[in-house]
């Protein structure tokens, strides 16, 4: 369908759209299709799905609302955007849940068919006296540009010819909406048509055709019904040359697992127990059996990590993955991996906590668990991905460190990265980092705790190798020979050796991502999935001529050896985190520096705006000052004051 329209087509730089509806309305599929199509036309983009919490809420209720936000642009962008320019609300619940995020003057497309008493009631649009409120009829939306459409009717009519049941026809309404959005933002329909044809194959081809028809209905309706004043065009972004695909964080990890096996020539073993938001990694790689990837769905998280340790012992690259509560269960076995000095990658896709917490929301609060959360001195390196695509590189880096240093490594991702997506410039296969693994086969001079003097890694000798029979285990060892040893001095030196080995990574790891001046009044120090928000806020600050800098850690533990010097070059350090100051603690513990903590634990990323404001404010604060994430002293003081005045 070519775009021979008489509408005004305005070229704009970027848009943020949010699609919201019931879990059963197919919002995630719709969002993914929009994303893919926008990627194909060459926009830079970032997405943020918002799943309902673990349970399946009844249709039409507030907890059942599912959302998908996409920001696409003709310039380089880093986040899915603070607030939407346009919201598609498939039902009253979707409107109610998402309205607070809409700024006045923005556009809301509303599926009027669902704004009937029954549905309004489910969405709690009810007054105290039990009567129904219909936001379409009162003045609550008067500050918005509301576009009412009967999507149900359009779906029913548009798919008439395919002989579907009404229920089946109604299922196509998300494609009607999608078609409208495609028209509004001048996107081609072909990619989605191709996808539908591929998805509904064989005897399901009727569904493909119905959905295609629904989409075209929406497209045409938008054009002919003159719903919109303008049509927009978002030109292609100037991305570096290359082949791109859109990728979600969990996907990128899955691809990296296959890549690790391929690059190293050593199979990867993935032992895991399903848990949100990590399960999709297991799902995806369980298809990669012909890539040298072995998956084992264990009976629990402890079995998952132990099987991975066993596989590492037997000569595969052991990997285990979970989220916070599952990682907590793995602590004891992580210590075993430290003691036996076997390579192992522990994937932690962080989610809201503590305990079961908010399983579908994001958080960065497992940092200290990853670095320190085990009995005794059980150090291990920790790397953290900072964008969906970065999950690929970071994971390979984790494998490189694990196998080079013979150590467990924690790889941190989070719910936002796991399900968020961005365009990924595909790497040249030949230029992927090397992962050289040499199994010991030489008998002469073999000892199980023989070390490489440079890396301090011990040898990796796998069962089945003649002449290298040996025993390992969790009891303290004499270095070299590897026999059980309870001597005081040996223990002290082994505890230190294991730490020194880990500290060596400080000199052999990804450098922090720096932006801005080399020294100055303020450094924003970040790690993990906040990269996008921080970068945007820093760019905004630069646009405001503030001479601030950004330092983002990819290697979070041990700190890269350059970090100490970097920190010393700025008057103020600001550490924004989706937790209560965990990196703030870690940095202070290592460098005893003053730093301002910006802590937010709301299950969602920072907005560019709030970060920018925080930067502004911090510049006003004393140089070399600190703020505690909880500000308890202030609080205590004010409570005392309250007591006094109240008493």
């Amino acid at each position, binding site marked *: 369908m070519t775009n021979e329209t008489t509408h005004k087509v305005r070229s704009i730089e970027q848009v943020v759209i949010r699609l919201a509806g019931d879990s059963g309305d197919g919002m995630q599929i719709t969002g993914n299709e929009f994303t893919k199509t926008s990627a*194909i036309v060459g926009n830079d983009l970032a997405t943020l799905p918002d799943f309902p919490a673990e349970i399946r809420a009844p249709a039409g209720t507030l907890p059942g609302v599912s959302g998908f936000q996409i920001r696409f642009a003709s310039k380089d962008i880093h986040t899915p955007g603070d607030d939407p320019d346009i919201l598609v609300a498939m039902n009253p619940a979707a409107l109610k849940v998402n309205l607070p995020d809409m700024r006045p003057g923005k556009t809301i497309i509303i599926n009027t068919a669902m704004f009937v008493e029954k549905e309004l009631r489910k969405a709690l649009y009810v007054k105290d006296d039990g009567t129904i409120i219909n936001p379409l009829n009162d003045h609550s939306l008067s500050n918005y540009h509301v576009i009412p459409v009967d999507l149900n009717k359009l779906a029913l009519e548009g798919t008439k010819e395919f002989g579907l049941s009404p229920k089946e026809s109604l299922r196509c309404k998300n494609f009607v909406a999608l078609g409208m959005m495609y028209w509004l933002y001048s996107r081609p329909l072909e990619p989605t048509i191709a996808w539908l044809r591929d998805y509904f194959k064989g005897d399901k081809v009727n569904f493909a055709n119905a959905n295609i028809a629904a989409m075209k209905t929406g497209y045409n309706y938008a054009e002919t019904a003159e719903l919109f004043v303008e049509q927009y065009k978002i030109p292609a972004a100037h991305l570096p040359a*290359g082949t791109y695909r859109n990728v979600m964080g969990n996907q990128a990890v899955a691809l990296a697992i296959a890549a690790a096996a391929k690059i190293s020539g050593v199979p990867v073993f993935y032992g895991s127990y399903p848990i949100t938001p990590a399960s999709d990694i297991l799902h995806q790689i369980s298809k990669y059996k012909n890539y040298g990837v072995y998956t084992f769905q264990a009976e629990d998280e402890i079995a998952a990590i132990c099987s991975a340790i*066993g596989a590492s012992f037997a000569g595969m690259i052991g990997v285990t993955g979970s989220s916070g509560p599952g990682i907590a269960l793995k602590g004891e076995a992580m210590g075993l991996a430290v003691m036996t000095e076997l390579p192992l990658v522990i994937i932690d896709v962080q989610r809201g906590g503590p305990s079961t917490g908010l399983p579908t929301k994001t958080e960065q609060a497992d940092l200290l668990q990853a670095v320190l959360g085990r009995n005794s001195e059980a150090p291990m390196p920790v790397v953290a991905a900072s964008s969906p695509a970065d999950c690929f590189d970071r994971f390979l880096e984790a494998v490189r460190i694990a196998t080079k240093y013979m150590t467990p490594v924690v790889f941190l991702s989070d719910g936002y990265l796991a399900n968020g997506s961005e365009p990924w*410039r595909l790497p040249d296969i030949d230029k992927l980092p090397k992962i050289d693994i040499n199994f010991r086969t030489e008998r002469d001079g073999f000892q199980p705790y023989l070390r490489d003097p440079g890396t301090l890694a011990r040898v990796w000798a796998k069962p*089945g*190798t*003649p002449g290298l029979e040996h025993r390992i*285990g969790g009891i303290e060892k004499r270095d070299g020979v590897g026999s059980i040893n309870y001597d005081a001095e040996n223990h002290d030196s082994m505890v230190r050796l294991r730490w020194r080995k880990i500290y060596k990574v400080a000199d052999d790891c990804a450098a922090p991502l720096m932006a801005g001046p080399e020294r100055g009044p303020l450094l924003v120090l970040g790690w993990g999935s906040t990269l996008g928000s921080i970068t945007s806020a820093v760019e905004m600050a630069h646009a405001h001529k503030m001479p601030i800098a950004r330092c983002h850690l990819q290697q979070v533990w041990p700190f890269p050896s350059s970090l100490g010097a970097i920190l010393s070059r700025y008057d103020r350090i600001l550490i924004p985190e989706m937790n209560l100051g965990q990196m703030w603690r870690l940095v202070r513990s290592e460098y005893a520096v003053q730093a301002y903590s910006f802590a937010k634990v709301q299950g969602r990323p920072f907005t560019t705006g709030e970060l920018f404001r925080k930067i502004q404010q911090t510049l006003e604060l004393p140089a070399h000052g600190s703020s505690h994430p909880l500000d308890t002293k202030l609080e205590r003081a004010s409570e005392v004051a309250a007591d006094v005045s109240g008493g």
Partner: protein
Amino acid sequence: MISPPLTKNDFKTDQEVRWCPGCGDYAILNAVQTVFPMLGIPKEKFVVVSGIGCSSRLPYYVNTYGFHSIHGRAPAIATGIKIANPELSVWIGTGDGDSLSIGGNHLIHAMRRNLDVKLLMFNNRIYGLTKGQFSPTSEVGKVTKSTPYGVVDQPFNPIALALGAGATFVARSVDIMSKHLIEVLQRAANHKGFAFVEIYQNCNIFNDGAFDHLVDAGIRDEHLIALEHGKPLKFGKAKDKGIKLNGFKPEVVPLASTPDSELLVWDEHDPSSALPFFVSAMPEGTMPQGIGVFRDVDRPTFDGEMAAQHANVMKKYGAGSLEKLLYEGDTWKVG
């Protein structure tokens, strides 16, 4: 290159064996070191895995690959090892605490999956290493360090538990019956799949004589019944008693007045585990306790099926290309 056949000595390590003098573990170690060289498996293809406990010291004393892991997790570690390399002969040394207490879940899951490993459970009805607390096989009423007024927990019947979990090979032997033990270990070794072997083991320090009422040389023939495939169930010093089905209840009958044809005939290969369960459930005290092989049936192994699935996928799709994997699907070009 033809290497000389392995001997018992090949499986001894330079580690001093650190069990208490008189401990039943020595006899089990001896049986392991006797059986290993008989199996025609090269030394480097054995792996001995264990958890924590006196019994779990086993790997240190067997000169092959070994992994002394953490408490209760040996079956999970072994799962990774077998998936990574199904050609290895993987043995687990464990205790009644290690495998039935903290490790109970991994044990029953390895059994239902039919992971091809051999698990020797040293049952001394006590926690030896931690100096004498009751275990999940200790008797009700037993006074131990942690139960000054007697145990109130009912113990597990390990054979019944194994059968309930679907183990394909289930056997029992006794530390001091070395010939029997060696035979049972050989049978376990030859079974393709999970082999669960309960071994009555005397902890002479914390639970001395726990099995004397069953295994003492003088009386054992009256209290143990050797299960022999295809044969009717008989026992007694004079082989003068048999077991017969009365309705659905087992009954001890004098052979003098009972023809063999009325006795229960042992069938270790019955696909259903109902018969071995029936025998395992015979109460201690009034009925003899089975020793030997309760069950030995063929079923695809977990590691074997997994390897086969990999091979099938590989055959069907060929070795995966990383280039294709990354570049597949909806990609687009810039510049």
